[in-house]
């Protein structure tokens, strides 16, 4: 067991991989390639190579520690096989007991964000104030400045966006990894046609 690892230590990329794994085990959030390159004072391309080595070593089924690419960076997590043991020892304060209202609000902010509370209320048909406050308190959304009235955000209301923590919880590399809305559910064209049909029938 020992000999291949000794060999690895003599390889510079693997020494860099050791430094990177050290950084990842103490970091409090996913680290981007740029952050890793700055901390190691090394080249981003070499960082990518080191991450490749680590990704192979710390992968599902092979190790209890798993390297994942999430929220614009890299982070360690527990293997899925250890989920039961983790659930017995740890809490899930961020996602515990999220309501249906919270799911809808998160969806709106993730897809349309940044958006304000009036905009969310308009789409959901119910005031979003307490849900927005609860999501902000959990750290899943955060204030993103004020909108301009001409941008459709009434009265320059505070607008919200999802946070890197949101991406982490939902295992997204970035918001771009959200599925396209068109791919979700069926086409909305039928709905529109039917309504127009009903309306013209009544008008005539």
């Amino acid at each position, binding site marked *: 067991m020992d000999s291949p690892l000794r060999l690895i230590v003599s390889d510079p990329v693997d020494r860099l991989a050791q430094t990177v794994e050290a950084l990842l085990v103490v970091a*409090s959030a996913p680290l981007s390639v740029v952050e890793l390159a700055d901390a190691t004072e090394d080249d981003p391309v070499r960082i990518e190579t080191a991450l490749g080595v680590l990704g192979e070593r710390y992968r599902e089924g092979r190790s209890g520690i798993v390297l994942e690419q999430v929220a614009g960076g890299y982070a360690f997590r527990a293997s899925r096989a250890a989920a039961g043991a983790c659930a017995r020892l740890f809490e899930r304060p961020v996602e515990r007991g999220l309501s*249906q209202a919270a799911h809808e609000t*998160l969806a709106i902010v993730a897809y349309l964000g940044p958006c304000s509370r009036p905009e969310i209320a308009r789409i959901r048909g119910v005031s979003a104030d307490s849900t927005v406050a609860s999501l902000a308190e959990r750290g899943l959304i955060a204030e993103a400045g004020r909108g301009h009235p001409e941008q459709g955000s009434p009265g320059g209301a505070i607008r919200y966006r999802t946070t890197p923590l949101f991406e982490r919880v*939902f295992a997204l590399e970035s918001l771009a990894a959200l599925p396209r809305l068109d791919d979700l559910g069926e086409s909305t064209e039928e709905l529109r046609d039917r309504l127009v049909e009903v309306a013209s029938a009544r008008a005539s």
Partner: protein
Amino acid sequence: MRELELDLDAFEGPFDLLLTLLLKEALEPREVDVAAIVLSFLERLAERDEIDLDACGEFLVLISALLELKARGLFPDEAAELEALEPEEAAEELARRLAEYRRMKDAAAWIRERLAAEGDRWYRLGPSPLAPRLERRLAPQDANALGDALRGLASYPPNVSLEHMALRFPPVSQFLERFRAVLARRRRFDFDSEITGLSRVEQAVAFLALLELRKAGEIALSQAAPFAPIRVSKADEERTLAWTARSA
């Protein structure tokens, strides 16, 4: 029907109490999920063997009133705008909004499923137990700032002059006479309409005069609701009315 138990985001309790709160404006109609109320009602209906037509009728009236209140609350500016639309345009607009709403429902469903699927990913939030401590480093400082800080604490604060804040208060008696004169001509008047056009200070003094007259028992005051106009009337007038009401 009115004892229908509800469990909504904004409200938990019987339907009757919800209506009371809405009427007292303690709860915003826009906070209320009307669809959830209808669902609760239908569930309740399904539990019964017979359909109570009276209860259903009452519910229909109440829920449509609530829906209208909510619609007005949600789209205060758009009510007029939408009224002007042709049926086709209105349907187009409605379809657009429904489509948007439906897409968001689908997205919310994806969010929920994803959360369930990723529930077996555990990770640490925050630094590891043996992470290096964050060092707060301070640039070199000037020791003279310390002496200055102490000098500031050791000096007496300057006497603040309030002269520039002098206000002109009209005499209370001016309003006492004015209100007595009004009541000599009319049996009652609205305080608010009597003081329009006066400065804030004058309005405050006028209010003091009103309290003086009330204390002396010369006038009676009434107000339909908080912030409603204050109705001022002659004291005996009010007493006669009260006596009549009680004896009737």
